[in-house]
């Protein structure tokens, strides 16, 4: 049901963890639906210097979380904002249609983390 890439990111997820002094934190989903993704970013000179995630959810949720962290690490904030859930799914060679809507939220979590970072910066 899952592509090889999904299974790779599921079994060996990249960048799992938390960043205690994160510059931004984004969280999407809720436990009732069975998916929560939390993304922590560290930003340096407009570039995502470090990124980590914690995810409660199915294989797709974990794999998309892992993939999004790989995709944006070292990218600028602006580049990161261009990454959509669709980009993530494509980078994983697609997701089962049922999972596209429910568990493919990692980019949303990233965008929330960036928003959080920007809100904090404003202050």
């Amino acid at each position, binding site marked *: 049901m899952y592509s090889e890439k999904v299974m790779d990111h599921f*079994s060996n997820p990249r960048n*799992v963890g938390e960043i205690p002094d994160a510059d931004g934190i984004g969280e999407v989903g809720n*436990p009732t*639906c069975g998916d929560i993704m939390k993304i922590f970013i560290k930003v340096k000179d407009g570039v995502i210097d470090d990124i980590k995630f914690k*995810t*409660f*959810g*199915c*294989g797709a949720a*974990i794999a998309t979380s892992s993939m999004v962290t790989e995709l944006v690490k070292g990218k600028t904030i602006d580049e990161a904002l261009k990454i959509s859930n669709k980009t993530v799914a494509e980078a994983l060679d697609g997701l089962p249609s049922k999972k596209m809507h429910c568990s493919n939220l990692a980019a949303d979590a990233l965008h929330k983390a960036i928003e959080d970072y920007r809100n904090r910066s404003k202050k």
Partner: protein
Amino acid sequence: MRRVYFDHSSTTPLDPAAAGEMAPYFTEFFGNPSSFHYFGRGVRKAVEEAREKVAGAIGADPREIVFTSGGTESVNMAIEGIAQANQKKGNHIITCAVEHHCSLNTCKSLAKKGFEVTFLPVDSYGMVSVDDIAAAITDRTVLINIMHANNEVGTIQPVAEIGRLARERGVYFHSDACTSFGRVPVNVDDLGVNLLSLSAHKIYGPKGAGALYLRKGTRWQPLFHGGAQERMRRSGTENVPAIIGFGKTAELAAAGLEHEITYLTGLRDKIIREVIGRFDNIRLTGHPEKRTPNLASFCFEFIEGESMLLHLDMQGVAASSGSACTSGSLEPSHVLTSMGIPPEVAHGSLLLTLGKNNTEEDVDYFLAVLPPIIERLRDMSPLCHYDHCEVEEDCITCTARK
């Protein structure tokens, strides 16, 4: 890689003895049992022998057995057939929240068509209350529909008491015995049912066969319209090889029941004991004693079932999280939520259903591969740092509230 099959609630491997008995009915004795000639006659006889075996296994008369294509068809036939045929008496059906989807959805469809359906709640073990049923009966009630054993948590309903109540109150009683048959004693008179559903592929029989037990004198109508097969109760050419295999495995299930119960209870209890002992923030789901002997079911907090299954599968262990039929769905299991388990915990359900081919080594292998999986997924979970949760009683709630 070692392969351990712990998903017998979903389906079972065909028993080799049954496969052997079925074999000649594919290409050699291929006739239609309704046919008059040589090719049909022998096959008709074999079908009737299979009917006797299935009937014998549940204490029924062979004429009370209608062969179907499986459990879902039997259950649909039972509920729909009673509802449609007894409209003069009434239009009220009593069922409960933890039924299999084939029961629940048939009842829901009847509710949409104007029938009245009472969906009774269950307690935290998934058990329905006989008093609730008694209180729900009205003079318009035509059917009580309560499964024998639950397929996701193993809880065995008080079917014999319900049967007594149903008889006293003059209401028909159907019980879905798809996952209880072959696992606990099933006798139609002891259970007091008017109708009972069985599925062959849950008892080491072939896919494509099931049966509806229909007590003599039951006012009921068929679901399929067509030829006169199965004494006008189920039209369509009989699935002969599957019926033969079903007959054989029904016989084996009845004969081997005592041994099966002892053997599987041992394996199951070891799993339950070890898993509960090994982890915190875990609960056994279903009734602690009144449960099918082959079923161990848990909810692991902070993690999600599919990811557990994927990891187990990568280690060669086939398990389930909720009913196989609904594994495509994203909803947390209706069985677990009906028992009062919060959705975020229900998502962490793990269901292990053992079978006669499982060994102690299978159990040990599973117990060895499980802990690192749970630890890894919990490490990855944002819901809680579980080393904190050990002390915080209401950890989940607070996390969920956040």
